[in-house]
């Protein structure tokens, strides 16, 4: 199949295939317009529109899902439809919806322009969705930038707060710094995948995989892959590219932090998985070929990154006294666990195992999103306006003063820790199982030992809440309806995914995460 010929002959447009993304984009624009031309302080209006938009996007995604006729592609392979995309799309939509709910009260109490925030959230969501649905490196980059630019702004959304300023500035500088790496990697890959036979380079992910054996500049291919790895590594915050995370998460407003830890990270994983598992896939032939070398290289690099990430995340989290910062390190650690599943997907010699591993990663990120958003919802409730009370000490003895908040937070923490009966446990089992299937025993043991380390800081918060007596006065915050909904949903989610995850896992697994052009 000739790429160029296809392009010139048949404009391969299918709006149906990008319907969810389109809806979200349009809703973002609508929200912006409503905000600009409607009455001020309409957070309910813009919020409702956004929520409705997310719902519509979810329905359309579900429509794509239900009308599943196998993997598909459009826009000359730039957009693909497969299990990986749909799975991640739902994760993003859930994250956005919950973030929206969490931020409802916050936006009002901080007297921030609600419409702006909602539209930024919509655009960020659209960016994430594009990242998942990209079949081409350019779309990956575009989606990433849509997401990033929106997130930079959201980070510094509380303009008058110096901490938020600093957070957003750091995120912006480092984010675009790493984007440059990613982009350079894309450029080098584009150049390297040209063939001596005269075919120009390509940025189509599936095409890259096919070009590797005959690549004209194999060395550039290595360099490109390495650069892209750095770029994605930054996005999902693997050590040592994680350095921005704690500062940014701490300084950003709590709802934004919640969003960033769950959404963009998952989006990063979506693209990262897509690019590396499908563009530099497992090669059956011996180690002599470029393909297998590059495959081995990125796998081993990821193994190193995973070990470093899990360890750094957990070990440093122990020393933290700020809850948001602690959760930031915890999110780093969780990225590490997810990378373990990612490695399994990369190393899988057959589609079946690869899809199982990919769905494990998706499931893991889904559970992480649920419990993480729940935890941040509670953190926001306790922090109050201006994120004042985020130190561990602020939580002391509130266990029986605010029993529901404390119970919910404890549940989320235990789930993050991976206790059985909660979502976190099943997630861990899935990724560890995938990794063990590929023989990564040491990696799994490292992960497990890290889990034990993580017990220390998760428990610490529980201990502070329940086992200490409060010395100062504590006025229990009233839980607003929106947060209440979030808490109920996330608690139910944690239990549902922990006790009866079969349905969800099945749903993800039955849709093969296959890049279309591979057929």
């Amino acid at each position, binding site marked *: 199949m000739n790429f160029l010929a296809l392009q010139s002959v048949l404009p391969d447009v299918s709006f149906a295939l990008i319907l969810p993304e389109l809806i979200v984009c349009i809703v973002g624009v609508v929200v912006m317009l409503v905000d600009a031309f409607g009455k001020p302080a309409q957070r309910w209006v813009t919020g409702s529109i956004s929520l409705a938009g997310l719902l519509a996007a979810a329905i359309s995604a579900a429509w794509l899902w239900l009308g599943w006729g196998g993997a598909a592609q459009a826009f000359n392979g730039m957009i693909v439809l497969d299990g990986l995309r749909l799975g991640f799309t739902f994760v993003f939509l859930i994250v956005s919806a919950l973030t929206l709910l969490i931020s409802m009260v916050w936006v009002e109490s901080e007297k921030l322009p609600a419409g702006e925030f909602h539209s930024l959230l919509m655009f960020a969501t659209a960016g994430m969705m594009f990242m998942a649905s990209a079949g081409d490196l350019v779309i990956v980059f575009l989606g990433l930038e849509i997401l990033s630019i929106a997130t930079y702004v959201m980070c510094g959304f509380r303009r008058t707060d110096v901490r938020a300023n600093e957070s957003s500035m750091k995120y912006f500088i480092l984010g675009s710094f790493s984007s440059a790496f990613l982009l350079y990697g894309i450029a080098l890959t584009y150049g390297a995948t040209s063939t001596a036979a005269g075919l120009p380079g390509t940025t189509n992910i599936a095409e890259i995989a096919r070009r590797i054996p005959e690549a004209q500049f194999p060395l550039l291919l290595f360099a490109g892959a390495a650069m892209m790895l750095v770029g994605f590594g930054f996005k999902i915050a693997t050590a040592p590219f994680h350095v921005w995370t704690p500062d940014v998460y701490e300084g950003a407003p709590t709802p934004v932090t919640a969003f960033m830890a769950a959404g963009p990270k998952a989006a990063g994983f979506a693209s990262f998985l897509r690019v590396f598992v499908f563009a530099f896939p497992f090669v059956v032939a011996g180690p002599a070929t470029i393909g297998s070398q590059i495959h081995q290289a990125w796998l081993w690099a990821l193994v190193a990154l995973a070990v470093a990430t899990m360890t750094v995340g957990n070990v440093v989290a122990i020393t933290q006294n700020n809850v948001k910062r602690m959760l930031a390190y915890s999110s780093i650690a969780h990225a590490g666990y997810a990378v373990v599943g990612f490695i399994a997907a990369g190393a899988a010699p057959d589609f079946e195992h690869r899809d199982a591993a990919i769905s494990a990663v998706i499931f893991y990120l889904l559970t992480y999103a649920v419990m993480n958003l729940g935890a941040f919802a509670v953190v926001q409730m306790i922090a109050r306006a201006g994120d004042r009370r985020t130190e561990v000490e602020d939580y002391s003895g509130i266990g029986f003063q605010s029993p529901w908040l404390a119970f919910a937070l404890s549940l989320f923490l235990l789930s993050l820790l991976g206790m059985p009966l909660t979502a976190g446990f099943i997630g861990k089992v899935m990724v560890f199982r995938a990794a063990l299937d590929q023989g990564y025993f040491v990696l799994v043991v490292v992960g497990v030992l890290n889990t034990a380390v993580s017990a220390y800081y998760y428990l610490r918060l529980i201990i502070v809440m329940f086992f200490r007596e409060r010395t100062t006065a504590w006025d229990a915050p009233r839980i607003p309806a929106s947060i209440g909904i979030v808490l109920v949903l996330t608690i139910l989610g944690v239990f549902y995914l922990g006790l009866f995850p*079969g349905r969800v896992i099945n749903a993800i697994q039955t849709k093969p995460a296959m890049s279309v052009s591979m057929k």
Partner: protein
Amino acid sequence: MQHHLLTIIILLPVAGALATVAYSLLPSKRESNYKWIALGFSLVDFALSLFLIRGAQTGSGGFRFVEDVLWIGSIGAHYHVGVDGISLWLVILTTLLMPIAIVSSWTAIHKRQLAYYVFLGLLAGAMIGVFVSLDLLLFYLFFEASLVPMFFLIGIWGGERRIYAAVKFFIYTAVGSLLMLVAIIALFYIYGTFDYTTILAAMTSGGPALSAQTQFWLFLAFAFAFCIKIPLFPLHTWLPDAHTEAPTAGSVILAGVLLKMGTYGLLRFNLGLFPEMAREFAPVMITLAVIGIIYGALVAMVQPDVKRLVAYSSVSHMGFVVLGLFSFTEMGIQGALYQMLAHGVSTGALFLFVGFIYERRHTRMISEFGGLSTPMPWFSTLFVIASLSSIGLPFLNGFVGEFLIMLGSWTSGAIQYPRAATMLAGTGVIWAAVYMLWMLQRVVFGKVTNPENANLPDLNAREIGLIIPLLALMVFMGVYPRVFLDRSRASVEEIRTRVAQPPAGGSFADARRSADGLTAEDAKHAK
């Protein structure tokens, strides 16, 4: 009902916890009613669990009351539960100790009663689940889930150093069990299922053969988790802290049931699934067990705190259990199982006694007491009886188990120096007398030296009623152990025949082995 009996037994305490929460939401709730709800549910649970005995008759092994439902299909996890002769008594021990634990908290727990009884209920469900799980993932789930309520029980209602103790307890045990999780997943990788019986069947008849190295690591992962839980020397240091700081009910359950999860796991999984490796590891385990027996006793002897003393005595007693398990003889394993029950009953009772005086004096230091027999004759009498059971006096429950264990290890062909090991272990019985009597001497006998003790009220009806069932059980178990042994025999034999070496010719060791060979014959006849 019959079909779902086990599920009901597991879920009833949890339902009780939920009912308590629901009741607390009523506007007309009364704090004092929480314990009644909890007690009611636990008593019904106990009554139901007694029906299990009817199903598990003597003479044959195998699992009864089996319930097998696909739980998470995509992971391959089943909800597969069942009891056999081994787990039967442990389940009943659990359901028996639960009401006792609840009643023991009747006046001791004033604060946060709702949460307290909720955690107790959750704990009960998890513990029962551990003993009846026939799916490895389910087992792990319950095993780990029991950690959290206990963590809270120690942390919220514990003593002064409760936080240290709770964290130590949690992390110590979590480290071990997480490695076990890796092993469980690895087994799934090899056999494609988490199901215990299926894996066992695959292992015995033509399934994938495990390499020695794989077995080594799997065995080690399981054993590590269980040895921490038991706790086996030198992994025992969480126990004294946890016991000392836990509230009375927590200590009772901790000693009575939680520790048994470790030995149960060793028997069911380490011996059951990896017999060759179990034989390989036997010298190590036996050595540690014997060291633990003596070490625990010696350290118990010098404890200034009654509760710590009882805690260290648990290290010693549980060492016996491990010794029995790794003797691979019918006597040893049956004895070990019996010792688990006996230890649960008598150590549970001892912790209750400590709780009684703690409630009165708010101290557990031995030096604070003395001459309690004068103001508290009932307490003293019953305490002495429970202590004697712990010492291993014949016709009380402690003796049967320890004797059978020693007999088993003495006649074991699997132990390298069976007589030396047994003789050393036997000194543990001497030490038990030393530390218990020394403690009794300083707490119960003598003159009342501390005026604060002079007018302590004796046990009230509730407290006596709490203890009497346990004491009656001690005597019954000591005098007529066949009720228990006959029902566990066939199940024990199933595991033992796998793990015991086939007879080999030659020496005195051969003679010992042939003794086991004959016991296997006996078992066949019994069927």
